[in-house]
């Protein structure tokens, strides 16, 4: 558009965006810096704004032995987080995809009832009914198992709704063409719906992976064995609250490590992630 321009109005967006980027990055920068100094420097409040010489020591210790009180190596915690996140992401995609398929491509008694049963759970995270859910998981013997970490969290309406919406955008003529071409429901699912959903699945995978990785209260409650703990919970254990000092350098090291996988996933899969996010929610 033909517009009157002014150097200030040209610079303003850059200025504001740079400030925004700075504000968003600053806490993480401090954490990174924190992960490269020793306990004393941090505890005395004399940590500078630039990285120190203890990076290797801190990261080796976090990955190898872990914090003093928890004593669990970060590697193992990350593996648990990874398994949990993966199970949640894949599980959610699998069950919500087929249930959405049922709702969209079939008409059967109680279809709407089933849909509503699922839909009501849309915005009800496990936190609201945390103790009863814990009790139920205990009753079915899933404490301290990957299944216990993942399965209760894969019951979510969001993914089902997303797939439903996506399926509704598949032209109905494709079903009709398939029918005329002699494909039944399972064949249609396998030959057409599945391949068409690949990007949706990938996008959803990114989001759910992050969701799973970032879980906190749930794994905190249902894992009792240290070797089942996840990394996000592990950090909380590093934040000692009594009698001893927090090993901030290890806590920060662990936090940086814990943040890395999901942030990398977001950065690498940015396009898919943004698409998935905007579609899931709308």
């Amino acid at each position, binding site marked *: 558009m033909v517009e009157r321009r002014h150097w200030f109005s040209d610079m303003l967006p850059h200025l504001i965006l740079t400030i925004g980027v700075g504000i968003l990055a600053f806490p993480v920068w401090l954490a990174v810096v924190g992960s490269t100094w020793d306990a004393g420097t941090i505890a005395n409040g004399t940590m500078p704004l630039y990285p120190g010489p203890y990076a290797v020591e801190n990261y080796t210790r976090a990955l190898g032995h872990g914090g*003093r009180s928890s004593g669990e190596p970060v590697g193992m915690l990350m593996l648990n987080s990874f398994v949990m996140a993966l199970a949640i992401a894949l599980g959610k995609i699998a069950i919500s995809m087929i249930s959405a398929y049922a709702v969209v491509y079939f008409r059967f008694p109680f279809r709407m009832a089933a849909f509503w049963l699922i839909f009501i759970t849309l915005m009800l995270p496990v936190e609201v009914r945390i103790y009863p859910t814990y009790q139920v998981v205990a009753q079915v013997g899933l404490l301290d198992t990957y299944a216990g970490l993942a399965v209760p969290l894969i019951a979510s309406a969001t993914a089902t709704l997303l797939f439903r919406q996506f399926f509704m955008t598949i032209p109905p003529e494709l079903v009709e063409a398939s029918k005329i071409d002699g494909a039944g429901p399972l064949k249609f699912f396998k030959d057409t719906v599945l391949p068409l959903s690949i990007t949706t699945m990938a996008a959803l995978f990114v989001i759910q992976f992050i969701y799973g990785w970032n879980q906190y209260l749930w794994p905190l409650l249902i894992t009792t064995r240290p070797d089942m703990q996840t990394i996000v919970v592990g950090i909380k254990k590093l934040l000692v609250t009594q*009698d001893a*000092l927090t090993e901030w350098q290890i806590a920060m090291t662990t936090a940086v490590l814990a943040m890395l996988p999901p942030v990398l996933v977001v950065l690498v899969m940015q396009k898919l992630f943004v698409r998935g996010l905007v579609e899931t929610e709308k």
Partner: protein
Amino acid sequence: QTEIQWWHAMTGANNDVVNKLAADFNASQKEYKVVATYKGSYPDALNAGIAAFRAGNAPHILQVFEVGTATMMAAKGAIKPVQEMMKEAGENFDPKSYLPAITGYYSTAKGDMLSFPFNSSSMVMWVNRDALKKANIAEIPKTWPEVFEAGKKLKAAGWDKCGFTAAWSPWALVEQFSAWHNVPMGTKANGLDGFDTEMKFNSPLHVKLLTDLVNLQKDKTYDYSGRGNENEGRFTSGECPIMLTSSGFYGNVKANAKFDFAAAPMPYYPDAPGAPQNSIIGGASLWVMGGKSAAEYKGVAKFFTFLSDTDRQAKLHIESGYLPITKAAYDKVKASGFYKDFPDRETPIKELTNKEPTENSRGLRFGNMVQIRDMISEELENALAGKKSPQQALDDAVSRSNATLRQFERTAGR
């Protein structure tokens, strides 16, 4: 090999001690394996234990801090009394071998010892001697007014962010304070004589302390440092030169403080009749959870016997700052001349045995005491933040505590 789960709340240096104990026990025999798991703070560990029990997944041994005692005692079906277990397992166990204050605290009215004493502590006043010197304070203050005075001097000498502070505020400012001044925290010998107790810690003396602190908070002569471990950090970093906390903090001070420090007795109001009386024990004991097999209990019993070993107890005391819980261990350390070299390491024991305990200083046994501590903390915060008058805050704390006590009374399975 039978696995024995031991959930605990020991952090920092004490955490190393616990891990070492488990490792040593595991190395000493082949039949059992003790797996020590850190479950977070004392309340977190207790919470995890309760939740796990409800889920049918309780550990064998649960470390519960002293104020959880009533909760555990009331849970008749959930626990296995230690004395009984030791007997069944054929292990030697004599409650009388422990310091009386400890035995009394963890035994029923009938004298059955329900839990195994592990890390008993008392509250002491940690001081930064270097700082005192700089502020020209010759003597470690003994009374509250002296502490206030010292705080002011320290402030003037550059410790302007914090003259003195106290960790575990409800423990320090209400529980130990009551016993040390021989005033009741609650009725019925602080609950030792039954669950139908009522709180009393809004007495004039209690209000006096809080009023003083509220006034000093204004210029940070006293500075409240939250409910977490900021206190400890501020002491070791040198920010706060005087701090009340557990004697069990020793290992961590030693590791982190770069100055000359000492553990002094808790301060008292000199005008309070009978003060100082005696302190009550803090720290925690080990509870054995119910519903396990005989073989497992046997392992637990073996482990406890292992822990009671006199040499081991003595070492524990020296390394961690917790009390030598058996008389034998105390005697042994004393005999070694350790206290001559390090007189302040005897401070907590001296506090504990300062006088013959009274109704008000034998111990505490309030139901839902863990929640009550939160209420007290909240009301202290309200007062210190100036949102409520000290009197009002303590009155509210008392009435809220009483409501909780009533609820506990209703549900406690007796």
